[in-house]
């Protein structure tokens, strides 16, 4: 792809602040033109600031030149939220990766946005704490990205998503001012600006420091692997566990195809002949965990469980989780590319929607693999394909739309944890009225009246009052 050549005045000004950390070489522009989605954009310049002051200067310079900008963490987002549209300046936070302070008395840590999710939990572990959101990409995704997307992960079933774990955020607003949204006190005075910023996908400014809540490590953890000869029994077990008044720390499901792929990849002893497995984790005090194990066993027995395997030690537990968390990568064993959806449906509708997913994939001559957060009804149907096949992307998109439609018809939502970004913004109208979206845009606009912060994301063009780029299909985004 041909990148628009950099505005030399803009580049010069950025270089006067950042030196050679303002770049327009083909390598960087190529690297930052994509994220974890199938979309591709066109950055004009890539900046690698090291502190808040530099981010502020970048934003001010961009404003002066009327140039859009886009903050980017590790680029693992799956909805195109970090795909640069409108020839923006990309503000990559990779060099802002310090854990600034661990404040045990307040049970928070101040971190820079480029700190990786798992690095933070590893750092906190000797102190007896961790950062609860744990997306599958946690080895590489950044805390700043987690804030932008309000990320989840398997353990948010019991612990809640990122928003519940971020108490304050230092932000460079789109007009270049610096604000701290939220604070370390229990009830921040005024309106909850922190709450609306989390999950706003970089459209309300750039997070430069984040105060995250520390969660105490549980004294006891038990991980169970349950296999079922019929996926319907597995799904019914999910609902029945929750209905029995038990909220496991995590409750994950894999279908037959996922089990096969994952087992070939990690050799964790996943039962490849099963139609579905559930990975159930219980944590807390010993009595509650023991009680939970009994409830899970009893409920599963009523739903024709095959075998129940309890991880004997941390190594076995880690191996089981390794399988789950690497499932997406393992899909490459059957097809080189995949497209992942993230809808949420009521738990009671899991079976019905799963069956539709298989039918939709068949109808579009695609392979569907399901590995997902069953406990909170968060489906992650993977459509595996080979991008070299002619016309395959059209089929992938048509199938995706059908899956989203089926999920929303079942009383679900568009996205559970990956965000809307670019990829799903034109589906927002399936969930919200024009007036709902116009109201959302009023709020976004209070933060960014000129529409310079990560333009064209989240809301479809028509609903944005200040959309200066205003096309239905954004210029410069290719699939």
């Amino acid at each position, binding site marked *: 792809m041909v990148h628009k050549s950099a505005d030399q005045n803009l580049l010069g000004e950025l270089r006067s602040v950042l030196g050679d950390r303002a770049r327009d070489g083909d390598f960087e522009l190529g690297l930052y033109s994509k994220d974890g989605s199938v979309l591709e954009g066109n950055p004009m310049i890539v900046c690698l600031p090291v502190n808040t002051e530099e981010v502020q200067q970048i934003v001010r310079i961009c404003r002066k030149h009327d140039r859009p900008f886009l903050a980017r963490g590790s680029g693992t987002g799956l909805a195109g939220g970090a795909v640069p549209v409108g020839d923006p300046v990309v503000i990559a936070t990779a060099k802002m990766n310090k854990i600034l302070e661990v404040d045990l008395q307040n049970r928070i840590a101040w971190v820079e946005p480029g700190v990786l999710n798992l690095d933070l939990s590893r750092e906190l572990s000797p102190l007896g704490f961790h950062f609860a959101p744990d997306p599958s990409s946690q080895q590489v995704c950044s805390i700043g990205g987690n804030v932008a997307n309000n990320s989840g992960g398997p353990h948010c079933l019991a612990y809640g998503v990122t928003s519940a774990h971020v108490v304050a955020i230092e932000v460079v607003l789109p007009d270049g001012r610096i604000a701290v949204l939220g604070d370390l006190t229990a009830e921040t005075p005024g309106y909850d600006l922190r709450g609306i910023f989390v999950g706003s996908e970089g459209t309300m400014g750039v997070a430069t420091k984040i105060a995250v809540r520390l969660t105490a490590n549980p004294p006891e953890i038990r991980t169970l692997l349950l296999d079922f000869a019929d996926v319907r029994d597995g799904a019914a077990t999910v609902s029945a566990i929750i209905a029995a008044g038990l909220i496991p720390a995590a409750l994950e499901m894999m279908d037959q195809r996922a089990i096969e792929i994952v087992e070939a990849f990690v050799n964790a002893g996943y039962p490849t002949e099963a139609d579905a497995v559930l990975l159930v984790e219980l944590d807390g005090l010993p009595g509650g965990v023991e009680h939970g194990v009994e409830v899970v066993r009893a409920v599963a027995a009523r739903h024709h469980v095959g075998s129940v395997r309890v991880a004997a030690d941390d190594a076995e537990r880690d191996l089981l989780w390794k399988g789950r968390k690497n499932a997406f990568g393992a899909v490459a064993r059957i097809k080189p590319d995949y497209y992942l959806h993230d809808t949420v449906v009521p738990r009671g509708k899991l079976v019905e929607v799963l069956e539709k997913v298989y039918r939709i994939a068949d109808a579009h001559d695609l392979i569907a693999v399901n590995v997902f957060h069953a406990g909170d009804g968060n489906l992650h149907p993977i459509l595996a394909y080979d991008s070299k096949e002619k016309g395959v992307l059209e089929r992938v998109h048509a199938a995706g739309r059908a899956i989203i439609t089926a999920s929303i018809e079942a009383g679900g*939502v568009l996205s559970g944890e990956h965000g809307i970004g670019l990829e799903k913004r034109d589906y927002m109208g399936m969930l919200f009225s024009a007036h709902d979206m116009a109201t*959302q845009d009023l709020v976004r606009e209070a933060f960014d009246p000129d529409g310079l912060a990560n333009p064209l994301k989240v809301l479809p063009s028509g609903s944005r009052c200040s959309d200066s780029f205003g096309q239905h299909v954004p210029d410069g985004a290719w699939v």
Partner: protein
Amino acid sequence: MTQPEAMQQEVDQFAKDVGASDPVTVIGGKTHWQVGGLPEPETREVRAPAGIWAHEPEEMTVRCGAGTTLGQLSEELARHGQMVPFDMDVNATVGGVLAVGRSGFRRLRYGHVRDLVLQIRHIDHRGKIVSSGGPTVKNVSGYDLCRLLVGSLGKFGCIAEVTLRCLPIPETTRWFTGSLDPFELHEKLYRPSSILWNGLQVWVCLEGVASDVAAQAAPFNFEEVTGPPPFPNVGRLSVEPKDLERHVASSKSACLAEIGVGIIHTNEVVHPPSIPDVNLSLMRDLEERLDPKGRLNPGRQVLN
């Protein structure tokens, strides 16, 4: 008429009640009526619809009219062994609790009330219905306006209908008291539901299965009590958890601190803290955009 149609009719009626022109204020249970100041005299009063509209125990969600009282809500949920841990006056309404945005005394374990909100339908200044969030337990579709509505005292809109996340009622709930160091307790106990401290005496709420609660309490010289002590209710101070000790020590009247949370209930008048200028300008801008004529709950102030 089906139930969804009946519910829609009630929300539509509430939208008509709120209307689009004159100043209007929403009444809940009036249990926190003074928070943010009283509405201007003679402001027209409206009430949000009441009633449990859907409770699906296996989904652990409940959808109700914002005028539903906490008493009604907990009675319905308890039938299925569930709760929404608001911990407030049974006459308070769900919409009122969210508009005020204060958490109950078990926040240490259950978190802020805003984290229990999944979906809100509110009536905006033009009398139109706005939906935000989503009905499922997990959702990141679109900007989460629910966050702005919680604690907004109705300045951004009148909450009509709410979907909340429910939790299982713990098998055992026990309260203990003693003359112990509350900070040491906070360090040693795993996920206590509440630790309250008046500077001399501590009250602890432990929940879970009976054996865990007993084992957690055993090492301490506790006396079992039936519940928390009365809360001083003149003022409410919000500080960093690490500063609680200093504030309690300097308190001139009776007070009760929520350890690990940072709330102090006191019998002194508390002046709201100031808001930094940049934040204040953003917040005023939001007020201007979401209610340009200032017709929603005039007189009440979130920003001082």
